[in-house]
């Protein structure tokens, strides 16, 4: 028999080249781990046959949780008995993916002992994915993880593991505390995260500014993206430094690329018509030593993004144009204090009226954004649309005035 710890054949061809090789990773794990050994063999089979050999999971998990584990079985268990069960555990990452080696090493130890010794750091939603173990090992792994202070993330029709950009931890553009909000929303909704009360999955992502470094507008049912309302802070000396020292063509690279054409540059001063600035970040990104976002900061909340299944992919769309995310909270504006109620209202409505496997974005499409806003108690705002309707198919609701007239 060939050495089961080494990839031969097709897979071996993926060991060379400058980019880190996942095959070498599996080999490394396979040195001591039989699951990893069988994974090599199975993958080689898939490569030869151009077919995947996994079957649907069925319901496996840890006690009391409805998510966090993806069950998986191989369809050729005789050949590869060590991956006959090959369930993954999704482990809720710490906000913004900061680690201390101590904790990481302990996770490695657990996984080497009780799993495949292979993981994904990280999965697309943000969890640490412990890639493949048996049903029997699920509880023990869970128990050791929780002792270490880690818990499982989401899967199935639950709140999925929230994630956030590095934000205030290392980025000068964080317009609100992304880590804090990600953490607090994870903790507050532990029940929703572990138990499937929803019609389908629901994702939160928090990005500190419109650059959206966690792709929240594309991948979260509720997207929080930092922004500001007052004027961009301009250090004209530094602008000149970019122009003269760095030889940056301010007109072409900055002014001409501004989407709202609200900037002017006369070779000496950069003038911004802030009332027309759409907070796209471009000028700040490029002239980052000279320009900074204003001081009146908060975030825009958007709703509904998702992958294509069923009704086609959606990007999130504006729900709350601006919300202040830190004290002092003013009376007349949307603030983070209103957030729990907003979320509750959305979940309640969607929970009650959403169809099975209908994401909130699809639900809004079905019932209509106007009705959705009515039901969750938000006022319509022009910021929510890229333009008003073009079709005349308006479901007019007759006001009291009209009704009276009608009765006359």
């Amino acid at each position, binding site marked *: 028999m060939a050495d089961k710890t080494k990839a031969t054949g097709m897979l071996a061809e*993926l060991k060379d080249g400058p980019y880190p090789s996942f095959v070498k990773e599996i080999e490394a794990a396979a040195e001591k781990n039989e699951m990893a050994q069988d*994974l090599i063999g199975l993958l080689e089979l898939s490569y030869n046959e151009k077919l995947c050999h996994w079957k649907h999971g069925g319901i496996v998990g840890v006690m009391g949780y409805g998510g966090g584990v993806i069950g998986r079985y191989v369809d050729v268990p005789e050949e590869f008995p060590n991956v006959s069960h090959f369930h993954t555990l999704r482990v809720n990452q*710490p906000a913004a993916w900061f680690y201390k080696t101590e904790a990481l090493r302990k996770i490695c130890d657990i996984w080497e002992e009780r799993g495949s010794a292979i993981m994904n750091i990280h999965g697309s939603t943000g969890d640490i994915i412990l890639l493949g173990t048996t049903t029997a090992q699920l509880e023990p792994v869970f128990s050791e993880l929780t002792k270490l202070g880690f818990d499982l993330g989401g899967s199935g029709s639950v709140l999925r593991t929230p994630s956030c950009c*590095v934000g205030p931890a290392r980025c000068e553009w964080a317009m609100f505390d992304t880590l804090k909000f990600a953490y607090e929303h994870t903790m507050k909704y532990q029940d929703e995260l572990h138990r499937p009360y929803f019609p389908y999955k629901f994702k939160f992502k928090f990005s500190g500014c419109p650059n959206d470094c966690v792709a929240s507008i594309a991948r979260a049912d509720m997207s929080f993206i930092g922004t500001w309302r007052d004027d961009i802070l301009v250090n004209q000396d530094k602008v000149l430094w970019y122009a003269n020292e760095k030889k940056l063509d301010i007109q072409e690279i900055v002014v001409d690329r501004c989407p709202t054409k609200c900037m002017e540059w006369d070779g000496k001063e950069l003038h911004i018509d802030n009332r027309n600035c759409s907070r796209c970040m471009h000028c700040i990104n490029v002239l980052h030593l000279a320009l900074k976002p204003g001081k009146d900061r908060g975030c825009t909340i958007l709703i509904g993004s998702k*992958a*294509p299944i069923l009704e086609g992919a959606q*990007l999130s769309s504006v729900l709350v144009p601006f919300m202040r995310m830190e004290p002092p909270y003013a009376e007349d504006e949307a603030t983070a204090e209103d957030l729990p109620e907003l979320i509750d209202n959305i979940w309640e409505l969607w929970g009650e009226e959403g169809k099975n496997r209908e994401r909130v974005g699809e639900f809004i499409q079905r019932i209509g954004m106007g009705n959705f806003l009515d039901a969750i108690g938000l006022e319509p705002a022009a910021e929510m649309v890229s333009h008003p309707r073009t079709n005349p198919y308006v479901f007019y609701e007759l006001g009291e005035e009209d009704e009276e007239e009608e009765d006359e």
Partner: protein
Amino acid sequence: MTAEPAERLTDIGPPHFEKFLPPVVKANYGKWDSHEILAPGIYVHTAESGDKLYTIRAATARLISVQKVRQFCDIADKYCDGHLRWTSRNNVEFLTTKKENVEPIKKEIEALGHPVGGTGNSITNIVHTQGWVHCHSAATDASGIVKAVMDELMDEFTNMRLPGKLRIALACCLNMCGAVHCSDIAILGIHRRAPEIDHERLRKMCEIPNVVASCPTAAIRPTSVDGNPSVEVIEEQCMFCANCFTVCPSMPLNDPEIDGVSLWVGGKVSNARHEPMFSKLAVPFIPNNPPRWPEVVEAVKNLVTVWADGARPYERMGEWIERIGWPRFFEVAGIEFQKEHIDDFKHAVTTFNTSTHLRF
């Protein structure tokens, strides 16, 4: 819920992030003033206090062994007081306040086979999914194509000479766990044949109303087979999304010769300059050709090249194409425009060219 043993912990959530933040981060949390990219993969953030934090970013394969994680930890212990992080695109980052540590970290991580780069106007890591490594849905592998494509593009990871950022993502089926729908270049695994129904198993495993409801095009109808209730698929109405298979394992679509990969271009996520955009279909189909998918690699490389040649500074793929127009894009990319490119789903009519704005 059943009673649980007293000591069993649940619903504890993740560790509080503060436990893992480096001291310099805690001290300057929310008070960073600026950053600069010193070299590809290496940047420094300066706080209002004047404190500096150096970051060294290196590529990883995402699929990683515990052995490798420990090696990363060794480096972090040696130079970073045990601190490290991963990025939202699965690169690893080493964090240090000491400038003199930067080069040694770079050397050691590169020695492990992990090139440093991915910052600024470069191609960073490919966001991807499970593929044949773990998912039952996969129409193609994930890690293999990513490896092959990144091997080819590595010079653009370790340099910052592109017009703008270029984000590549891969998803092995239409579920799009890689959220490829808003990427500069998206690689998408696809089926091209209707599900084959195993009526025997379907009867036992699947709920017929759910199966019927799962189909976006209403191609699935209840029927009876040999006197037993089952479903049938109207093949002309099936566009191979596999949503029925997600709901019901007895309706597989996999087929080694028919499955393959499609390429999509011009999506973006950031709000910088242009609003976020969906990716659009560029190459309808490339067959699966493991282990190195040479046709896919070549096609992706070609897309990167034509964009790099044509785009103005900071123009992302989609912005460039919008400026030159899609007909010109197909021309310079050498891709034939086909029936498949024309939308025929729900909002198709909104994608038609309703103007005479044409370049000849």
